[in-house]
């Protein structure tokens, strides 16, 4: 490690992490109160009382080190000597042995030590081991040392937390590059995207506390437990992430000071550069690491790893499109058509569907598995158009937080699986513009009128549909305005958009169809709930895009709504109530299929022009040249059928 070169970068560019060179020389702290490096986002500072409590807790934990080592030995021995274990556990135990062997072969960890050797090395009670476990990630097992169970994470106080870039970074750079080119009157630059990875990541960060990067495994050969310590940081310690990230924070910042647009996600470097640079940006990122690291030039053999280094075998060379952070990013049309496209990698989709299939096969999904699946799904849907599919995670939320010890693969989970199986392989690509478009946005207002009926209607019977009408008065109103179709608007240009022959302002009103309100949830006693206003507000939203799909296709829309529950649901793409979540899901599937981008915004009821048709008042809209049309609703069967129908209907490439 060229510690002086690292220090020279810090001093030359006045980088905030002044202590990093010393830490590489002396070793990074693993537990205890880790000082602020100034590299990351500051957490709320602990009070004097917090620090006192932490110190006291730390002391208590350290007092119990020897007893804990006894406990770890007992747990690991019992686990490995059990006469019968499940197939999963068997695979995991084998994986621990194999991955530990691999780490040993690579020289990432020490050889196996006995308890006596460990005590001799660090002294009685001055070490604290972790239990090693393994998780299957992607296509391989990865060892995780349990810093939480060993209480080492409780014995760690961090003052900062990392901030990672978004997978959208290439789009952000493309937007900046386009604006710069426009400002300077030069042609739009072609952009390329490349990625580099650091070799062995956490393991290459020297620690000053190897006695807490210590773990216990079972040696099948010796039929006894063994202690290993890691020369760098293990996976599983709270401090590993923040401490390791200090290094790429410095090197990425150096690259930027040298004019290379570079960011990093832990050990993954993202370089978004002009194509004319011919990969010289990626070369500079390599050179920075080479010079602060072991000095081994690209292509030369590296007999051993002595410092963080770029792993060329994993390099993704600069190209118009590349997979970064699990998302395929296509920059090839940024300089010609002004668009950047995102799509989840096929591997991610496959992995999620495999998780579903496994749960179904075993008829089992635990709260933890639901949480993992939900997280992976959420990340994947981030790179789909709009907020599509988010609301269908409701059954996973239910399992994660509300089902207690229930593990059966329920009917609700089955529905969610079917939905994902239909949607995920056909997720609409997310296409974003590099510059604001010439086409102005549509203006949409929607509203629902809903109130309990003051006096019960006499003509009703016990039929469900009539019962709704007997209890409630409800009506929906929708308004759509296109500035390009309005001769009085300076943006008037009917050839630019579709649908001007139907007028610049269209509106509709209707009573919500009986068969749709029949799908709304009832209270526990089977009676109606007190209100369904949020459901009706979102239903009006569904209706406006269903009624005027060709006008909306591919357009940006400013959509005003006066109900905050519905507004929040539409912005997040999610709601806790099952019926509301279902309508929101349908709404976003429709929007995604139409390739529209919608900005949802609050409008006070007293300003919401859609309030007028919902109350049968049409005068003002007619004064503005409005044309009344029928309001259309999707057929009743769609509300109870597979949700992907909603996507199929308007999609150019239906699943």
């Amino acid at each position, binding site marked *: 490690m*060229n510690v*002086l*070169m690292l*220090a*020279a970068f*810090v*001093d*030359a560019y006045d980088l905030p992490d002044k202590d990093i*060179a010393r830490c590489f*020389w*002396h*070793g990074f702290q693993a537990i205890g109160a880790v000082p602020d490096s*100034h590299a*990351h986002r*500051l957490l709320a500072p602990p009070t004097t009382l917090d620090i006192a409590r932490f110190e006291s807790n730390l002391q208590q934990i350290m007092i119990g080190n020897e007893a804990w080592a006894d406990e770890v030995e007992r747990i690991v021995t019992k686990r490995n000597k059990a006469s019968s274990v499940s197939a999963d556990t068997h695979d995991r135990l084998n994986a621990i042995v194999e991955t530990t062997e691999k780490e040993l*072969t*690579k020289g*990432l960890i020490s050889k196996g030590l006995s308890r006596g050797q460990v005590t001799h090395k660090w002294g009685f009670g001055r070490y604290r081991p972790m239990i090693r476990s393994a998780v299957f990630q992607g296509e391989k097992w990865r060892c995780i040392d349990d810093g939480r169970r060993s209480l080492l994470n409780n014995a760690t106080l961090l003052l900062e937390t990392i*901030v990672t870039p978004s997978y959208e970074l290439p789009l*952000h*750079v493309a*937007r*900046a*590059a386009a*604006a*710069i*080119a426009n400002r300077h009157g*030069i*042609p739009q*630059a072609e952009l390329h995207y490349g990625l580099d990875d650091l070799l062995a990541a956490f393991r290459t960060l020297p620690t*000053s506390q*190897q006695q807490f990067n210590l773990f216990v495994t079972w040696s099948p050969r010796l039929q006894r437990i063994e202690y290993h310590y890691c*020369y760098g940081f293990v996976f599983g310690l709270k401090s590993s992430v923040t401490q390791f990230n200090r290094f790429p924070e410095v090197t990425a*910042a150096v690259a*930027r*000071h*040298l*004019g*290379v647009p570079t960011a990093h996600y832990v050990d993954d470097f993202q370089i*978004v550069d*002009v194509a004319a*640079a011919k990969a010289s*940006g990626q*070369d500079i990122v390599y050179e920075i690491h080479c*010079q602060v690291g072991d*000095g081994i030039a690209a292509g030369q053999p590296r007999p051993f790893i*002595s410092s963080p280094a770029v792993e060329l075998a994993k390099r993704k060379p600069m190209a118009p499109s590349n997979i970064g952070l699990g998302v395929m990013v296509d920059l090839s049309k940024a300089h010609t058509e002004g668009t950047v496209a995102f799509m989840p990698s096929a591997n991610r989709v496959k992995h999620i569907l495999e998780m579903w299939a496994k749960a179904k096969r075993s008829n089992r999904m635990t709260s933890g598995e639901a949480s993992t699946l939900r997280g992976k799904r959420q990340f994947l849907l981030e790179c789909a158009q709009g907020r599509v599919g988010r609301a269908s995670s409701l059954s996973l939320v239910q399992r994660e937080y509300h089902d207690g010890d229930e593990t059966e693969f329920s009917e609700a989970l089955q529905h969610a699986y079917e939905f994902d199986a239909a949607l995920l392989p056909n997720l609409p690509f997310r296409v974003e513009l590099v510059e*604001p478009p010439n086409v102005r*946005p549509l203006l949409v207002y929607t509203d629902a009128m809903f109130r309990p009926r003051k006096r019960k209607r006499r003509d009703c019977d016990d039929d469900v549909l009539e019962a709704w009408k007997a209890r409630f008065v409800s009506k929906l109103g929708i308004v759509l305005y296109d500035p390009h179709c309005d001769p009085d608007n300076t943006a008037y240009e009917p050839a630019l958009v579709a649908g001007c022959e139907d007028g610049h302002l269209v509106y509709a009103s209707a009573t919500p169809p009986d068969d749709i309100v029949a799908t709304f949830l009832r209270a526990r006693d089977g009676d109606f709930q007190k209100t369904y206003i949020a459901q009706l507000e979102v239903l009006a939203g569904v209706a406006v895009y269903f009624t005027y799909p060709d006008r909306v296709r591919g357009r940006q829309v*400013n*959509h005003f709504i006066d109900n905050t529950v519905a*507004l929040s649901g539409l*912005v997040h793409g999610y709601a806790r109530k099952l019926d509301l979540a279902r309508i929101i899901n349908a709404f976003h599937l429709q929007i995604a299929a139409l390739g529209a981008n919608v900005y*949802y915004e*609050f409008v006070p009821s007293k*300003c*919401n*022009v859609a309030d007028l048709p919902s109350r049968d008042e049409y005068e*003002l809209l007619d004064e*503005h040249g409005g044309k009344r049309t029928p309001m259309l609703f999707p057929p009743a069967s769609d509300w109870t059928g597979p949700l992907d129908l909603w996507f199929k209907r308007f999609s150019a490439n239906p699943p």
Partner: protein
Amino acid sequence: MALALVALLALAPALDFLPSAKVPRAYLEAVAALQSIEVCEGKVPRPTSSARHVFDTEGGDKLVKPVHLRRVKVAAGYGLHFDAAKQLGFPFASGEQLLAPDMLCATEHAVLKAADGSLEAHRSKVIKILRTHGEQLRPYSLSLNASSCRPMSSRYRAG
């Protein structure tokens, strides 16, 4: 030169764990050379929130803001709101909003240098300077590493 070295050490704490006598002259030269190739100067503020996303700006606003902070500053009146909303554009998250100042600067440098055809030559010069000073400092670093108070060497075999 000696005075500059003293000044640097006083102002530059990256090596403050070493006695000043152990800081080689090559270090001062490296710092000066690195500063000479810096194209994006200035400190970047410490991050205070997670990374920005386009959707944060363009996906909608669930908050009910005070009227004067809304895009349409009308509290009552259907026609007034409608007429004002007709003029609205669609929110757009610009590169300036989305990127940190140093990333923006690096992008500008790359775009402009590419346009005038000098980018490759500039970067070749940068790589040369990095190599020269990296190699000059390496022997001092190796000597320093040998005196490391780290508990054990961390040399791993390349896989």
